[in-house]
Structures are given as C-alpha cells and as structure tokens.
C-alpha cells in the first residue's frame, strides 16, 4: 500500500523534501502521525470499501433487470442490499470527505502544523480498519440480511445471519468518527493561525466543524443502540422485543436520532467543498459568506430534530408526526439558501470549466433535485404513499451519490495536485464527470417514477409492469459503474506518470495553496499571518502555476 515508490522516478519539484518522500517504507506509513499521510491511508481504505459496496450495487441492478430476478436467490439479494447500505453509509460516505479531504486540509487551511491530536488521528484510522474488518468478515461469513437500518425485531430475534459482527463493525467504526470529529473541533477552535478569525475561515472549515458536531453528538447514540441490539440478540432480554414487552419503535427512534443527522454528515462537507470550488473557478468572493457559514451550523442543529420523518407510517403518534414534519420542512431552508448563494456567486464572475467545476455544477443540480424531492417526504400526506418505495431510494441517492459523491470527486480532483504533486489528464476528467452525471440520472430518475407508481424498495422480485423503468435504471447503473472506474484509472496513473504540479495550479486562494505541492511534513515553514478575508480574489490576483 505504500505509495512511496511514486516519487522515486520523477521527483515533482526537484529534490525538495515533502511529506511523501520524507520517509520510506510500509512502517513509515502505518505508524505515521502526519495528518496528510493519514488522509491518504483513509483515501486508500475508503476507495476500497467504495468499490466493494459498488460491486454489490451493480449486482443488485443486474438482478433487477428481470421481474422474477435475473441473478440470485431472494436471500442473497437481501444480503446484497444490506451490505451495500452498510458499507456505503458507514464505511464510505460518513468518512469520505471528512476523513480524507478534511484530514488533509483542516490543518493546512487554518495554518497549523497538524491536527491537535495526531496520535488520536492515527488511532481513529486503525479503529476504522478494525470496524471494516468485522464488517467484511460478516460479508465473508455469509452476509447479513437485515437492511442497513437493522430494524427490530427482525434483526434481534428473526434473522439468522451475521448481525452481530456487522453491528459490531459499525459500532467500532463509530468511535473512529467520534475521534475524528473531536480532533477537528479542537483543532479548529484552538489552532487557527494568527489573524484567522472565524469569519475569515474558508467555508469548508465551517462545514467540517458543523459535521464534527454531528459526529460528536450523534454517533454515541447509534453506538449504544447497536450495543443494545447486540445484547438483545445474545440474551433475549426484551428491550426491543414486543413479545416480552419491548418497543421495536424505540429502536427506530434511537437509530434515526443518529442516522438522520448522518445524512448531513455526508452532505455538509460536500457543501463545504462546493463553496471552495465555486469561488475558485469563478474567481469571486462567495456571495453571502455569513449566510452560507451559519446555514451549515443551523443544518447541523436542525438535523437532530427531524428524525421522526422516517417513521410517519410506523404508527408513531400523529402529534409527534406533526412536530417532525414541520421541523423537516425547516431543514430545507438553510439548504436552499446555500444553493441560491452559490448560484449568485457565479454572477459577474470569471468562470472556467475545469474538471472540478464540472463536478461542482453537477452537484448543484443533483442536490437541488434531491433536496426538493425531500419535500415530498416531509409532507405527511404524500409521505404515506411514497415511504418505503423506490421514491425514497431515488431521493437519498440524489443526495448521497448525486450530492455527496459528486462533491467528493470534485474535491479530490481539485486538491489532487496538492495531495500528490501531480496533474491528471483534464480531458479524461471532464469526460468522466459527464459520464457519471448521465449514468447517475439514468439510474435514479426512473426510480422516482417507480416509487410513485408504488414499487416497494428491497424487493428481490417485482410485478412485471415495473420492468421498463427497472431496466432503464439498470442500464444507467452500468454507465455509472464505468464512470466511477475512469477516475480510478487516470488518477492512479497520474500518481506515477502525471506531469508535476506547481504549488497553485488553479490560481486558488487559501493557505493550503501557499505551500509547495506536495507540502512538506510540517506544512508551513513559518506559521502564516492572515490579513484578508476568505476568497478575496478581487484585491490580489493569484496566477495559476
């Protein structure tokens, strides 16, 4: 896994020492406390998990080409969607931007030498890996079939699959999120460079800060919930088992108390990336800085108040339903404010169409669709019809794949030259962005229609009248799958063969671009003193290079 070899042949900027070539060997990677190297460890691991989870998705879509199921037994199909969900949510989306880009960028953007607790940072990667091993063990030992939501009493008393290893894996990984969030909060509070006040921070930092709050306050609740689930399954003590007086709906409350905010763990950092990309490629200060910044915080807070909208048809009290409905509508507003501000930032800008910008524009469109379709589900009357159907599946994929993954890829493309010191082929990158956009829409738009027509989710077989739309969706999934392979190939290629990148190939503002690419281990020779606002493109020009 060592990428140390990449610098052997062509050292990007002469013989300068940077974080990649400062030390060699597997040990120097596995025992590193450098936030940049840990970011790369995460990048490698979550990419692996992404393709594992993606393989399950492709198999599912292939299976659904035929109404009676083309590929596997229903039991296997149930395991496929469960493992897809568990791996994608807990092992890819949640750590994706915070643990890779966040780890790499937070200290660099705030002008610090490292995170506040570097050893804790490494520990959180190991915890992640241990959690991943448990979950992968569950896959190998026959899989788990409860759905990623682990609803009781099915998961606690009925399923005969590896529920405990999976839950344990998720439980353990939770601590990795908690430690990462803790590290970010302390770092952002205590280690900003002189002059870098809160309102001069890049918006990515605000977004990561808001995400960290959710990590800290939400993750412990899912941990204790899965702990209780495991005990219930082992000892049958009845906390969630209605046969002994337990309340299975309580499990859903505790589960969604974390898992709804978790959606914002996935999308908030993406929104942060977006603010960086839009400003850089339109050379404009962000429109309404404080509105965008505070909308991140208010999303983080309100996200904890809306979980009950997952439970409108579960027999939750209608008074609770009403409360959760109105709060769910409220969370739409800060998201809308962000979209409007990004659009307004483009006004009178100097817009270039580099690959990261294409991902950013794709994000805005898909996120807008995803967010607005959320209104259908916050509305009590329509939610009754749409809940538990493919409409939900389409909606959250527009947010998580169309939103979070697009932003993640945009961010990776944007900071790739900084991370590796190499440039990737821009033409291929734009092509991949297009393929992904088309493939994505073809996969998930038909699912909105399927959901409205009434096709329930998690069906291994389905009535034949739904076939046309399912085939369209499966066709889109194959395109999407290929779309994700393209960046994997050219980015890997560029690590070794890409042309060397200068310190600031996009002409971007921000402290991370003032360092050489790749940066030295200590990030900054002298801790910088900040005297200007974020994204101040109008007052001092930055040239590409």
């Amino acid at each position: 896994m060592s990428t140390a070899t990449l610098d052997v042949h062509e050292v990007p900027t002469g013989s300068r020492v940077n974080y990649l070539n400062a030390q060699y060997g597997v040990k120097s990677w596995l025992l590193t406390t450098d936030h940049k190297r840990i970011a790369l460890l995460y990048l490698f691991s979550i990419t692996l998990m992404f393709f594992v989870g993606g393989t399950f998705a492709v198999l599912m879509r292939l299976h659904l080409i035929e109404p009676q199921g083309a590929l596997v037994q229903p039991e296997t199909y149930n395991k496929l969607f469960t493992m897809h969900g568990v791996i994608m949510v807990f092992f890819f989306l949640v750590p994706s931007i915070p643990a890779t880009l966040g780890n790499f960028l937070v200290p660099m953007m705030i002008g610090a030498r490292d995170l506040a607790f570097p050893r804790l940072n490494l520990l959180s990667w190991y915890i992640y890996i241990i959690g991943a091993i448990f979950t992968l063990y569950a896959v190998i030992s026959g899989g788990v079939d409860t759905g990623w939501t682990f609803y009781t009493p099915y998961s606690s008393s009925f399923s005969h699959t590896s529920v405990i290893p999976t839950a344990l894996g998720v439980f353990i990984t939770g601590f990795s999120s908690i430690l990462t969030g803790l590290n970010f909060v302390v770092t952002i509070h205590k280690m900003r460079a002189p002059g870098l006040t809160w309102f001069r921070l890049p918006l990515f930092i605000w977004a990561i800060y808001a995400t960290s709050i959710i990590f800290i306050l939400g993750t412990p609740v899912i941990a204790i919930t899965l702990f209780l689930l495991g005990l219930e399954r082992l000892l049958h003590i009845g906390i969630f088992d209605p046969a002994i007086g337990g309340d299975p709906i309580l499990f859903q409350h505790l589960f969604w108390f974390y898992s709804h905010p978790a959606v914002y763990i996935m999308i908030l950092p993406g929104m942060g990336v977006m603010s960086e990309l839009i400003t850089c490629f339109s050379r404009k200060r962000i429109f309404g800085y404080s509105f965008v910044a505070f909308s991140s915080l208010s999303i983080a807070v309100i996200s904890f108040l809306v979980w009950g909208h997952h439970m409108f048809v579960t027999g939750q009290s209608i008074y609770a339903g009403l409360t959760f409905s109105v709060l769910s509508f409220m969370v739409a507003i800060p998201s809308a404010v962000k979209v409007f501000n990004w659009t307004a930032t483009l006004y009178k800008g100097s817009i270039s169409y580099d690959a990261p910008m294409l991902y950013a524009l794709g994000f805005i469109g898909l996120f807008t669709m995803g967010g607005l379709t959320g209104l259908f589900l916050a509305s009590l009357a329509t939610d009754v019809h749409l809940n538990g159907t493919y409409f939900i599946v389409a909606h959250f994929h527009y947010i998580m794949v169309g939103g979070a993954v697009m932003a993640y890829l945009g961010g990776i493309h944007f900071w790739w030259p900084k991370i590796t010191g190499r440039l990737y082929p821009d033409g291929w990158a734009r092509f991949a962005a297009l393929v992904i956009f088309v493939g994505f829409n073809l996969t998930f738009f038909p699912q909105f229609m399927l959901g409205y027509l009434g096709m329930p989710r998690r069906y291994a077989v389905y009535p034949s009248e739904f076939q046309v739309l399912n085939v369209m969706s499966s066709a889109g999934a194959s395109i999407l799958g290929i779309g994700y392979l393209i960046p994997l190939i050219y980015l890997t290629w560029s690590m070794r063969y890409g042309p060397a990148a200068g310190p600031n190939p996009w002409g971007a503002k921000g402290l991370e671009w003032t360092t050489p690419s790749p940066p030295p281990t200590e990030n900054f020779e002298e801790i910088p003193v900040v005297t200007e606002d974020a994204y101040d493109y109008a007052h001092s020009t930055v040239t590409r290079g």
Partner: protein
Amino acid sequence: MAVHNAHPPGFAHQFEDMEQQREAGSLGMWVFLLTELMFFGGLFASYIIYRALYLPSFEIGSHLLEVKFGALNTAVLIGSSLTMALAIRSAQVGRRGAQVGFLITTMILGAAFLFFKFTFEWHHDYLEHLVPGFGFVIRPEWGAAGAHVPMFFCFYFFMTGLHAIHMIIGLGILTVLTIMAHRGRFNPQYYSPLEVSGLYWHFVDIVWIFLFPLLYLIGGRYMGAGH
C-alpha cells in the same frame, strides 16, 4: 512525535506553545465527555421510556436493591472525586508527595466502589436469580407486574455495568498518572494529563449521581410505596 529540544518536557510539535497545548487538551476532553453524555444519554432515554411504560414493575425491581449500598457507594465516589481534585491542586501548587498520595487514595476509593458493587450487589443479585439472561426467576409475589421486572434489571445491569467499565478504565488511567506523578513529571507549569483525567473521573462520578436516584429510589422507599 518529535519533541524539540528547546521546548519544555511534554510539549508536542504541532502546538505553538504550552498554553495552546493545555487548552487543546482540556477542550478535547470536554468534547469527549459530550460524546460520553450522549452515549449514556441513549441508555437514559430508553430507561425513561420504559420506566413510564412499566412503572409498577420498575418499582418492584428498584425495591429489590439495597439503598444502603447505593448510598454508601455514592459517598465513596464523591470522596474519590474530592481526592482527585486535591491531587490536581497539589500539582498546581507543586507538591509531588501529596499528588501521589491523593492519586492513590482516589484509586483505593474507586476500587472500593467496584468491590462493593460486584460482591455485595451483583453477586448477591446473581444468587437471588435477578440477572436477566442468566437464570432470572420471576417471583409469584410480584403479581402481574412481575412480567416486566426483568426489564428493570436489564437497565440496572447495563447502566451500572457500563459505569463500572468506565470506572475500570479510569483506574487504569490513574495507575499511569500515579507512576508519572511519582517520577515528578508534573509541575505547576505542566499538569495537563492530570487535569484532563480528572475531568473524566468527575464525569463518571456524575453519572453515578444520577444512577443512584434513578435505580435505587424510584417511587420512594416509604412504607407502601408502589402498592
């Protein structure tokens, strides 16, 4: 982690100065305690709900616990919190011997708590067949409310068990601190590890301050309570 020679002992390279490092450490521990609060919070929330649903059963369960052990253990833990605070104070005023002494007293009190908990309470409960999943026996004299007495004991063992795990971790930390203090690693300029571990120890104490009334004192203990 590289330690620059020019810097005082215990200083980590990523910080600008000792003050920043101390503040970061203390804030980090507070953030960690927030996650602990939510961790116990999920359990407390479930407890509150089931207590509301099955109050008579919870009262029966509660009355099977010995208040005297609960109260005694509360006093023991409060005492250990005091000695922990005094250990930090000794570091602040630079008294090494007192530091070690107070830390050891804290450990003794913590261990005493666990000893009382395990031998006088848990072991006793096991003999009385009050451990769900391990031969729990529903007694006929509980009447119809007996069906949900195991639920109370589930929560009792989860909550006190999770608390005990935290105590054991705390004892481990205290051992390390005692050794460090004995070697004179702390002084009025640098006592961050002590301070931060103290926060943790006090938090564990606070959890118990709530567990005591919630588990031992439900519905009162007066004659006829719950009937």
